[in-house]
């Protein structure tokens, strides 16, 4: 009935489907998980540590991408929430005597509660002003870590006993590593599940147009709260694992450099692409370790990377993957190459 001006080219579509199982997103991610799974068997302790840090940042970056890339909402507070997660889990173990397996979920719940306490009043603001309010929160959180001595142990932070994994027959480092791997896989899968559901579509609708979103009965405020909550969950889990990895929690781990580091992960991977964030998180952690101790170069390098990606490759890594790997599909990510 409607005259078709440009039919999709059928042969190309078929080709994509046939090669999909070979070079698609799922097999690529599966290979990645496999590599991470065997890493502790062949790497030295430092490499295992870097791998573990990368897994933690995969969780952080994927969580932030739900907010930034899927829902299109800005927040500079994710590094601060990461810190809240680390402090909450660490302090629950150290000062409240909770075991790690209990401290981690409770710490995550505390992170979500604090995240919402900030997001709720800030949601009254629109756009840029909301963004600035979250910057202020990030600075405030850092200040609290340093100055609320009686709870946070102040500038010097605190040291905990290593998490005990003997019940599973694992050393601490191996235990934390595989726990991080399992949680990262589960949380990435969860992000994909959410993305492809009604909730994910509502988040994208919010990103694209609040007016159009409302016209399909999406409650704007509720959807924003969902987005902020989800991101806080990921930040809380990542923070708890981070405390478990280092056994030391100090304020400067969560300084404002986290802002550019995490934005870079999301943008380099591709706004709205879960797989992209995961890949970029691993790459950037390796890069950051390479620049260890050179704060000025880290700032200049990551700042330029963020700027350059936005200017010259706004689709991120995942856009290149989609172009060069015919089986790679990525739901809801923006900057399509049609």
């Amino acid at each position, binding site marked *: 009935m409607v005259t078709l001006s440009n039919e999709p080219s059928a042969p190309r579509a078929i080709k994509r489907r046939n090669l999909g199982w070979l070079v698609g997103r799922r097999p690529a991610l599966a290979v990645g998980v496999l590599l991470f799974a065997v890493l502790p068997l062949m790497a030295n302790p430092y490499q295992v540590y870097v791998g573990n840090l990368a897994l933690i940042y995969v969780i952080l970056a994927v969580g932030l991408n739900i907010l930034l890339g899927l829902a299109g909402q800005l927040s500079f507070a994710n590094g601060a929430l990461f810190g809240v997660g680390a402090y909450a889990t660490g302090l629950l173990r150290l000062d409240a005597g909770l075991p790690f397996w209990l401290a981690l979920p409770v710490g995550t719940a505390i992170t979500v509660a604090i995240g919402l306490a900030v997001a709720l009043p800030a949601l009254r603001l629109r756009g840029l002003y909301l963004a600035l309010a979250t910057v*202020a929160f990030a*600075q*405030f959180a850092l200040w609290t870590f340093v100055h609320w001595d009686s709870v946070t142990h102040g500038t010097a932070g605190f040291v905990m006993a290593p998490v005990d994994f003997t019940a599973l027959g694992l050393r601490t480092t191996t235990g934390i590593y595989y726990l991080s791997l399992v949680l990262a896989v589960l949380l990435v899968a969860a992000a994909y599940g959410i993305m492809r559901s009604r909730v994910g579509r509502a988040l994208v609708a919010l990103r694209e147009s609040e007016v159009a979103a409302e016209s399909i009965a999406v409650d704007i405020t509720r959807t924003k709260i969902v987005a902020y909550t989800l991101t806080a969950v990921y930040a809380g889990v990542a923070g708890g694992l981070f405390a478990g990895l280092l056994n030391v929690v100090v304020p400067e781990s969560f300084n404002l*450099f986290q802002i550019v580091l995490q934005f870079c992960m999301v943008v380099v991977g591709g706004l709205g692409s879960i797989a992209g964030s995961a890949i970029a998180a691993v790459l950037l952690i390796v890069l950051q370790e390479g620049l260890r101790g050179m*704060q*000025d170069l880290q700032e200049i390098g990551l700042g330029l990377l963020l*700027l350059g990606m936005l*200017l010259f490759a706004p689709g991120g890594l995942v856009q290149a993957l989609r172009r060069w790997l015919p089986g790679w599909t990525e739901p809801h990510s923006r900057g399509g190459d049609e």
Partner: protein
Amino acid sequence: MLLAYALSSGITSGALYALVAVGLVLCYRTTGHINFSHGELFMIGGFLAFTLHVMWGLPYIVALLGAVAGSFVLGVLTDRVVYQPLIKAPPIAMVMATVGLSFVLKGIGRHFWGGQGEVVPFPPLVSPAPVLIGGVAVFPQQLVVVASVVVCMLLLTLFFTRTRAGKMMQATAENAHAAYLVGIRVERVYMLTWGVGAALAGVAAVFVAPLTLLTPDIGLSLLLKAFAATILGGLGSMTGAVIGGLLVGILEALAGTYIASSIQDVSAFIIILAVLVFRPTGLLGARARREV
């Protein structure tokens, strides 16, 4: 006595916040964007003045002009490198790009002017000994700062009301499309706006340098104080930004004196949160109408 001291130092830093806030609001009104590297422009401006005045021994006025010129150029660069190329991109991309720029500038500041935690002393312009005015000890540098800020504001007002460029900036802020239709080269106006906004941050940096310590990390806290000022003054109002800046300066000086000096670092956050919870339109602001 304590109160008078707190007030005088509060007014001094408030005047500077006002200057930075006006630059922020100026760019926001005209371009619709907040430059997240605004605080770093301030930082670089301060270090430029330090290089010219302290390291090379050039007269203070040369340092002032150099810092203003340098930050103006950085503002124009922001326009060329970030604003113009991303003008059609989603706003979120623009914000993140200025964040990227802010870290580049911060890294440059750290690379050339010192590592984390190091600070740079800047000798006072006038005699460091306090003078008594009506029984209150005031540092002459404070008087110089307040007077200079007042002069800057007057110059800015003249610029907007008397000069062609200033009028074009006003017109573009009111309605960019209409300005374009009457033949104003809107792109040029944007460039000038970023430059002038940045230059104001540079001026502020040169005045504040002798009073405080410059660090590569100063930018963000300054941006937040300027932001607290604009939010207090109502979003997007220049007069509001000036009044808001003074209020922020006085409030944090009072809190620093009577509660705890470390509170000063987070005064911006507390003010922002308080305004959001109790009066989301700002103390002086009108409710922004929602666009459909």
